[in-house]
């Protein structure tokens, strides 16, 4: 299967188009089947993936606009492989747990389209193709938030769209400048990201371009102070919208940092470590505090999700293999854990139509299975050892410790603060006596919900105990990325900061 990446990208889109014909009553099964096939395909990709090879695999390249250097160029390496699998997995799980009944057909079709764009972003190696999928992903999400959301859904959907759209247009200008610089250097137009990696730029160019790209990516992540769209989007989105948004869409931003900014602008990235680290630090601590002040369960998780994204950014900017590999791994675990948490809140929302913590209490007695899974996921979110988050968070922080111990220690408070707000959420809603009479008769998880949630728990614990199958390929690609950046760096400071393990080994 040479074209497995194309199949992965376009299978959901074709399925979505055909889905218009499928009858309303059978669309659920259709959606789940399609998502399952897609997931199976992505697992196959993993099986046939060579974990010891650091470069791009399954490369496909067809010129689209040769005179302007735009091509249909796909490829996958250890960094993107698992995010692709995360996307297909979360889509499958989300569809299994889907409890929406209004207009289910439109929703499933838009989720399948969304799946196409998500996979597309992570396997594109052409900047324009990347941009196409990046922008297209906004459209189904706009619809999902706007049509099935809460009272402020239209406002939230438009805010989400405009914020990201504006940011990415600035990134587009950056891409055009980059392509022009490449043209000046080589005499050929190219938007190929791997070609761009090879371009050496003077520091001041790098800094400006870094800023242009960073604005686009930072809005998506979302970095402080561009994060204000996210709580609205999460607050209003239906469960599946929040799950996909938190688990996959936000990762596009951090993935973009690893794929675009770091290798393209190594010197500027090093130059900007401190500003970015301080922004991340504000993001980590400030949103953690805001999370503690929330009364709505979903908002707590939304803010905690921003806070954790801060740690991911911090890990990425550690500029050493531990930090970057850790941050990539943390992207995966954050996807699984925050996806699961949003799904769990959705479960209770379906039953009670409220998410306020004050409405609950003693849920563990009424719904023991639910309480158990929630407990596991709360622990995972806090970063308890033997869960997936621990590995990622620990590695990210270890990586950044080499850059700045003080900032790392401050960022480490995120674990403490995280424990505070997550555990207090758990205490308020799940422990104690059943105060509210309405909660007495709540039904425990049904089959669909159990299947979806237990599979997430399984992954969390499995990769928490034995992360090697995933961490191995990530490490291979990240190490080659870091040594590439080390070679490419032109300033002395960057050479010193970017530390590939190979050189350290040689030094010893």
């Amino acid at each position, binding site marked *: 299967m040479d074209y497995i990446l194309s199949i992965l990208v376009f299978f959901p889109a074709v399925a979505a188009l055909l889905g218009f014909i499928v009858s309303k009553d059978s669309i659920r099964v259709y959606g789940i089947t399609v998502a399952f096939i897609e997931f199976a395909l992505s697992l196959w990709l993993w099986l046939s993936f060579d974990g010891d090879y650091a470069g791009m695999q399954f490369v496909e390249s067809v010129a689209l606009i040769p005179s*302007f250097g735009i091509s249909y160029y796909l490829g996958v390496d250890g960094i993107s492989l698992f995010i692709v699998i995360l996307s297909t997995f979360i889509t499958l799980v989300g569809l299994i747990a889907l409890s929406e009944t209004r207009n289910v057909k439109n929703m499933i079709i838009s989720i399948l389209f969304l799946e196409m764009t998500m996979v597309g972003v992570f396997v594109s190696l052409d900047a324009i193709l990347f941009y*196409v999928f990046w922008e297209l992903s*906004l459209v189904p999400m*706009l619809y999902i938030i706007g049509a099935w959301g809460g009272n402020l859904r*239209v406002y939230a959907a*438009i805010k989400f769209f*405009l914020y990201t759209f504006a940011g990415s247009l600035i990134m587009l200008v950056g891409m*055009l400048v980059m392509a022009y610089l490449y043209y000046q250097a080589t005499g050929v137009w190219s938007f190929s990201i791997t070609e761009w990696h090879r371009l050496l730029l003077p520091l001041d160019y790098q800094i400006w371009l870094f800023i242009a790209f960073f604005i686009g990516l930072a809005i998506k992540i979302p970095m402080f102070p561009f994060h204000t769209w996210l709580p609205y989007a999460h607050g209003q989105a239906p469960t599946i919208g929040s799950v996909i948004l938190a688990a996959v869409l936000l990762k596009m931003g951090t993935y973009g940092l690893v794929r675009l900014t770091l290798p393209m602008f190594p010197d500027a990235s090093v130059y900007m470590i401190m500003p970015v680290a301080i922004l991340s630090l504000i993001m980590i601590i400030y949103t953690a505090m805001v999370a503690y002040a929330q009364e709505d369960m979903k908002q707590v998780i939304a803010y905690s999700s921003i806070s954790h994204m801060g740690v991911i950014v911090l890990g990425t900017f550690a500029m050493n293999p531990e930090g970057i590999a850790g941050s990539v791994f943390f992207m995966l675990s954050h996807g699984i854990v925050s996806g699961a948490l949003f799904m769990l809140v959705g479960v209770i929302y379906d039953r009670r139509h409220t998410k306020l913590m004050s409405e609950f209490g003693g849920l563990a007695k009424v719904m023991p299975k639910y309480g158990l899974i929630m407990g596991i996921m709360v622990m995972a979110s806090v970063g308890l050892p033997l869960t997936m988050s621990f590995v990622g968070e620990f590695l990210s922080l270890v990586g950044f410790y080499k850059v700045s111990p003080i900032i790392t220690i401050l960022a480490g408070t995120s674990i403490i603060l995280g424990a505070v707000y997550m555990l207090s959420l758990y205490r308020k809603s799940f422990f104690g006596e059943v105060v509210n009479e309405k909660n007495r008769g709540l039904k425990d998880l049904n089959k669909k919900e159990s299947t979806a949630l237990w599979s997430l728990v399984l992954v969390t614990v499995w990769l928490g105990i034995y992360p090697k199958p995933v961490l191995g390929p990530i490490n291979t690609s990240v190490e080659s990325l870091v040594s590439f950046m080390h070679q490419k760096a032109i300033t002395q400071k960057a050479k010193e900061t970017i530390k590939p393990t190979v050189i350290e080994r040689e030094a010893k």
Partner: protein
Amino acid sequence: MLEPISVSLESLNLGTLAPMLVAICGGLAIIIIDLIKKDLDKSLYVMLSILVLFVDLMAVIGLQVGERGFFDIMLIDGIAVLSQIIIIVASMLFIPLALTSKRFHEFSYPEFFGLFLLMVGGFQFMVATDNLILVFIGLETASLALYTLIAMHNREKSFEAAIKYFIMGALGAGFFGMGSMILYALTGSVELYKIEEVLAAGGYQNLTILLVGISFLIAAFGFKLSLVPFHTWTPDVYEGASAALAGYMSVVPKIAAFVVVLRVFEFLISSNVVWLRDVLYVLVVLTMTLANIMALVQKDVKRMLAFSSISHAGFVMAAIMIGTTQAHSALFLYWVLFLFTNLGAFAMLWVSRHKESKWHERFDHPYEKFSGMIQIMPVGAVVMAIFMLSLAGVPPFSIFWGKLYIMSAAVNSDYIILALIMAINSAISAYYYLKLIVYMFLKSPEENDGTVYMKNASKPLQTIIGLSVFLTIFAVLAVEPMMGIITYYVEVSGF
């Protein structure tokens, strides 16, 4: 005593006139047919017009690039051929919109189609010459026909629109006359290449007077291209004209005017008349930004599209200001891609045209009309949404590629600030296009049985819409071949 002038037929090179003659004779033929036999159906006239335009197109394609003819008045260079092709193809795509299932007053008159073909001929004259007088004649022929076409819609609003357009057009014509007069006074010629030679030979001595002349010309084209602050007529005229004609007006007259502007300003810009470049810069930024901001508050989709087309014109005007070959090619590419999308968007409005004004006492297409369209007519809503996303510049739909090329041209000529302004404007414009999507997808339907969206639809109209959806979605595949042709024609004529 005057010397008798002997002119041989070959030196006239009448072939250069053939395309316009085809259009004009076709127009006259339609009127003659009506004299012979009354009460023929509009479908006959539509098909005849398409056939005439087809012959016209073939005549244009057959032209030798780089010729002059008819006392050297006609100039057939690359952009003349290219823009004529665009004008004719756009006309061929728009004229079938007359085949509505409802009866409309204007289409029952053969004069409508006769005037339409005369107008096309006028635009062709406008682009195929560098003689300011012939430009003027072409412009006025086309405009007078267009005013009448608007008024034939036979509603109070249409008369108002036609008169408004006429007055503004007359004012523009006056400015054009003044501008050309000053150029003539300076150089003793009305032919642009001679004007250029004389000015260059004199080293741009009388710069102040020249700039006064240029100011007049900028104002004249400002009216035609609806650049801010000369744009005030646009929304009202679009509102009064039928949607089909409004769509036509947003594409064809503007490409003709762009070509003239390109001819007039290109040599001034390339000989570094900094003042002109600065004025155009300001105009471009104003046009993009103010039109966008005004579009935000519109209550009617057609008025919104009017402001949006002003803003798109500003975007494209930037290409002329930048003045490189890449920018000029991008201009034509952008306009072809814009044609695909705008054709579809206005055709969608056109099929939903209805007599009773249930939603709003004034507007035909208020946003409320499209509330919850996804639940009533999912396909229609998705199609309209694709057009809106394309207009907003969301990839991979057609206009994105146009924007990409123009922004890239800006970046390559070190206008990075301009590229950023364009980016920000695209983001602003996304809001008002999204507004329609929000109404269609996110609001629940008001009482509405769905027939209204397709009240006017017939097979030909649906075909046109289907075609433009197809072109809008798969534009990326067409960019490379189109860019090849466009760049060839633009380079051949030295722009």
